[in-house]
């Protein structure tokens, strides 16, 4: 039944296969009636996928969780590292995903600094803050964060951007 099937007679039949010196298809056909799947094409596709994914691979992983509907501005920025993250979403400020008020941000940042020095004595506090906000946000919503970070002694602010 297999021998007479359309698959056997069309899809797996080729002129080159017939004339192969090493393994002519005609020889194989005579020996067994099994259909062999062409795995080479599958491996080719898999290999291309692996190469593409390897090129996109990032050893640092996802450092920021960008919320739905949040669009970061485009810029040619530097590499982002892991630092405390302040998010500004819908006029609300979040420090490491915990909502804080603009007034309470200074104290929350000072607490972060205190915890760091307590947990890692002798190590210098990096004093770097990552700010994540939607590109359409007005500066009046961000000004409080800039001011609070300066008051808490964070000398470096890293505005999260999507790399161009």
């Amino acid at each position: 039944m297999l021998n007479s099937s359309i698959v056997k007679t069309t899809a797996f039949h080729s002129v080159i296969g017939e004339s192969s010196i090493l393994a002519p298809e005609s020889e194989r056909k005579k020996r067994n009636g099994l259909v062999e799947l062409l795995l080479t094409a599958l491996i080719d596709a898999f290999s291309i996928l692996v190469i593409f994914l390897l090129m996109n691979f990032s050893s640092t992983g996802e450092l920021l969780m960008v919320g739905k509907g949040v669009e970061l501005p485009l810029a040619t920025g530097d590499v982002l590292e892991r630092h405390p993250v302040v998010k500004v979403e819908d006029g609300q400020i979040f420090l490491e995903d915990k909502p804080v008020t603009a007034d309470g941000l200074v104290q929350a940042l000072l607490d972060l600094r205190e915890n760091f020095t307590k947990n890692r004595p002798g190590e210098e506090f990096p004093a770097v803050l990552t700010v994540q906000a939607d590109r359409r946000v007005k500066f009046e919503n961000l000004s409080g964060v800039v001011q609070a970070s300066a008051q808490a002694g964070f000398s470096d602010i890293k505005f999260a951007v999507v790399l161009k």
Partner: protein
Amino acid sequence: MSRKKHLEFEINLIPMIDLLSVCICFLLLTAVWLHVGAMNVKQAVGGQAAADTEKKPTVWVQMGGEGDVSFEVRDSRVPARLAKMKLSGKEGRPDQEAVKKYALELKSVEPGLTTALIQPQAASLYEDIIDTMDTLKKEGLIDLGVTPL
């Protein structure tokens, strides 16, 4: 015939497919589709007296309404026509081409100029601030700062 049979061999591709499948699954799970970077901004902290700090040429960038951008170069000997400049906006947003041209001209006159302080307004869009900083950074003004309201 026996010789022909000896040459006829097939590589077992199943382990290869298994390996590739595992690789694809791992890479798909760990893939980062959005490449996030950072625009670095420095700010003055601490209580050092202003008189003690070294005077460096600085350009103050004031972002006005309708995308207007005003520049003022301080502590530098740039020509008067460049020391103060107001660039009009384009479609309500800062004209980045004009900003780029001005920054390029400034850098050619004062190569030591690396500091820019952005003064946005309450209504200034975050995107416009970042775009302006990006343009300035590309032209060599690498020490950027943002002043709060």
